């Protein structure tokens, strides 16, 4: 994996963020999903905390299994999303790298990533007896429609009212615009960074971007976050200009679809490096880059509604298939990897068919590996690596 100079800055940022979250007396805490419109919270000085990001952190630190087992011991089924199980376990045992998350004062949940989060947040709402606000962003079977935009915009107005009541303060539009500005700035730098993956050789590996995703997920809407991505962008841009590749002798260029396997990040990075295979683009990290695409300063609500609806896994298969094919083309890929994640049904169901169709469209080989982002019990090194080796051979053949 690539160690960027900016990485120490990110660690600092994230540490500061979690320290503030754990110690703040003034700011109310909202637990939020990764696709929730946090701009409203930052405007109202409510601090957003992301259980998904925390679960990912537990997974990467090889702490998720013990937390998952704690959740299962009180009856949570091994069938449910392992982010949720990790979160429940961390909450009960105060385990994991930061001894659990600070208790929430409210919950904000958006359905643009899945409907599973509603169930997850219902459990939390009951445990803590705090209000839950849901921004319902329905699945876009047929693309973005006027009705979907109006539906979402109307809920944003209601969210604003809810937060006004919750904090006892009025909604400051100037502050909102400022937060939006930071949010867009960060998203735009993030997008520019990801686009640098088109460079041959790629200056980063998708495994790196999984790590550097943390601030855009957690701190989007703050100046610190925007500043951080500017620095990271400049560093990677210079590497790209100098043609410094993230792995020596890049031979294959692939895409990664679905969540990372957090507890195997390093092992897989080494595996791919050994095979001269660079992961240069990931649908998962791309999801946070589109925020600026629809922004219209005259109509910020509508722009946000479009952005929060237009999430990759909130879209129909035709869109997803065409999108994968376009990435294969734009990033000059030699193949694509689909992670069939046992925990994430919305990301994984239909994947077998998508693989067939994408190969038919692009002529590039694809592989599906079976895994999970946080539950190591359903993952096998041997099986996965054998499959990946065969895939790499098939890329060799199709060269």
């Amino acid at each position, binding site marked *: 994996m690539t160690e960027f100079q900016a990485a120490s800055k990110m660690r600092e940022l994230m540490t500061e963020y979690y320290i503030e979250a754990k110690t703040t007396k003034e700011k109310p805490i909202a637990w939020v999903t990764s696709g929730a419109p946090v701009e409203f919270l930052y405007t109202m000085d409510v601090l957003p905390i992301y259980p998904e990001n925390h679960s990912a952190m537990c997974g990467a630190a090889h702490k998720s299994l013990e937390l998952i087992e704690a959740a299962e011991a009180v009856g949570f089924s091994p069938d449910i999303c392992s982010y949720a199980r990790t979160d429940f376990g961390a909450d009960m045992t105060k385990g994991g790298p930061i001894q659990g998350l600070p208790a929430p004062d409210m919950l904000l949940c958006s359905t643009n990533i899945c409907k599973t989060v509603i169930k997850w947040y219902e459990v939390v709402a009951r445990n803590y007896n705090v209000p839950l606000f849901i921004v319902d962003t329905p699945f876009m079977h047929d693309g973005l429609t006027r009705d979907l935009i109006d*539906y979402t915009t109307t809920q944003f107005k209601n969210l604003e009212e809810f937060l006004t009541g919750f904090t006892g303060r009025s909604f400051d539009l100037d502050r909102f615009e400022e937060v939006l500005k930071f949010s867009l700035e960060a998203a735009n730098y993030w997008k520019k960074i990801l686009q640098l993956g088109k460079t041959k050789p790629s200056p980063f590996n998708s495994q790196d971007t999984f790590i550097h995703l943390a601030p855009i997920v957690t701190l989007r809407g703050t100046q610190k976050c925007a500043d951080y991505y500017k620095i990271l962008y400049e560093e990677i841009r210079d590497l790209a200009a100098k043609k410094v590749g993230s792995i020596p002798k890049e031979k294959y260029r692939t895409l990664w679809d679905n969540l990372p396997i957090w507890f195997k990040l390093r092992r897989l990075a080494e595996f791919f490096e050994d095979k001269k295979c660079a992961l240069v683009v990931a649908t998962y990290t791309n999801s946070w880059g589109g925020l600026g695409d629809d922004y219209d300063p005259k109509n910020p609500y509508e722009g946000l509604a479009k952005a929060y609806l237009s999430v990759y896994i909130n879209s129909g298969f035709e869109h997803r298939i065409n999108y994968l094919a376009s990435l294969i083309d734009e990033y000059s890929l030699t193949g694509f990897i689909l992670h069939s994640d046992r925990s994430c049904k919305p990301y994984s169901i239909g994947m077998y068919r998508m693989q067939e169709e994408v190969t038919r469209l692009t002529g590039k080989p694809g592989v599906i590996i079976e895994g999970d982002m946080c539950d190591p019990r359903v993952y096998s090194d041997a099986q996965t690596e054998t499959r990946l080796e065969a895939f790499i051979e098939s890329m060799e053949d199709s060269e």
Partner: protein
Amino acid sequence: MFEPFYEVVFNVSKNITENKTALGRPVIGVMPAFFPMELIDAAGGYPVQLWGNNLSLGKSDAYLQAFSCSVARSVLELELIEGARMVEGYAFTSICDTLINLRELYRRLFPKPTVELSIPITRTDEARRIYLKSVIASVISGLEDITGTKVTSESLTKASSLHARTRELQRQLYYIRAEKSGLIKNYDFYVTIKAGFFLPRSVYNQMLEDLLEKLDKLPQPKGKRTKIVLSGMVFDPIEIYKIFDDLNIDIVDDDFANGWRTVSKGPLEVADIVEGVTSYVFNPAPCCCLYNPDNDRHPYLVDKAKKAGAEGVLFWYIKFCEPDAFDRPQLIQRLKDEGIPASFFDVELSMTNFDAIKTRIDAFSEMIKG
């Protein structure tokens, strides 16, 4: 008494084909859950409910991972083995991630048209109205395209009363079961409800009326029996009821999505269809798939168990059904706090060996007998 219902449940495809010919209407497959079938009837279609089936799975493995629920896998299997040839289109709802994506898979794999009732779960009334209005309009026009018949306010009113009548008759059956515990074998009861998934309303309503008339005259059998309540999404495989019957355990009420959660629904109000559909979907029984804090499952289930005089509640869990799985631990705890024993067992629709389930039911029954 129950033979006509058995005949349907064990010859589903033959029955649907015959009825389709007799009616001259296109068959629309209705996926779980809560799609108002009144709309299909009003558009001149013949709705048939697909709550999964007991096929052994083979072809569907090429498209759905083993971690998808067996409801989704088995309906796909049916289509892939061409067992659903008589179905001309599908009606979906958006109750879970699996079904939402299953619809997408159907659109890639099969030429049959699909419609989806995308259910808004917002707490913002105005937003819900805006969205649902457009969803209903597109569902109706999608159905009209399949059937070639326009929905009119007369056809809606007529369909609404036909379906309301079915549920009213089914409720009477539920009441008899509760009042004369032991009179209807568990197995017979669920065969009777299940037959309704496949029959045209007019045919099924007549069968239910005949049955109710006979049951009315019969007294409650004597003897001490164990009473329980079941909760889950889908009440299949029905083989399991034979285990309850053998152990003299009476299911006196249920909280199944394809049982009481559907049967309890009042008439679909058609005068204001947006409000009508909202009320239809969210009332009166709560469901794990429909976020609705105004109608909380916790007090609801406690109350249901108490009213039924049940000695315990068993959760009938279709493997990999996340909406159901998330609710269960807290619900079981709540029931236990109220002094109501509760437990669960795992089910796959394709299963053929019920030994493990029998062991769990045995153990539960021993526990509640104390």
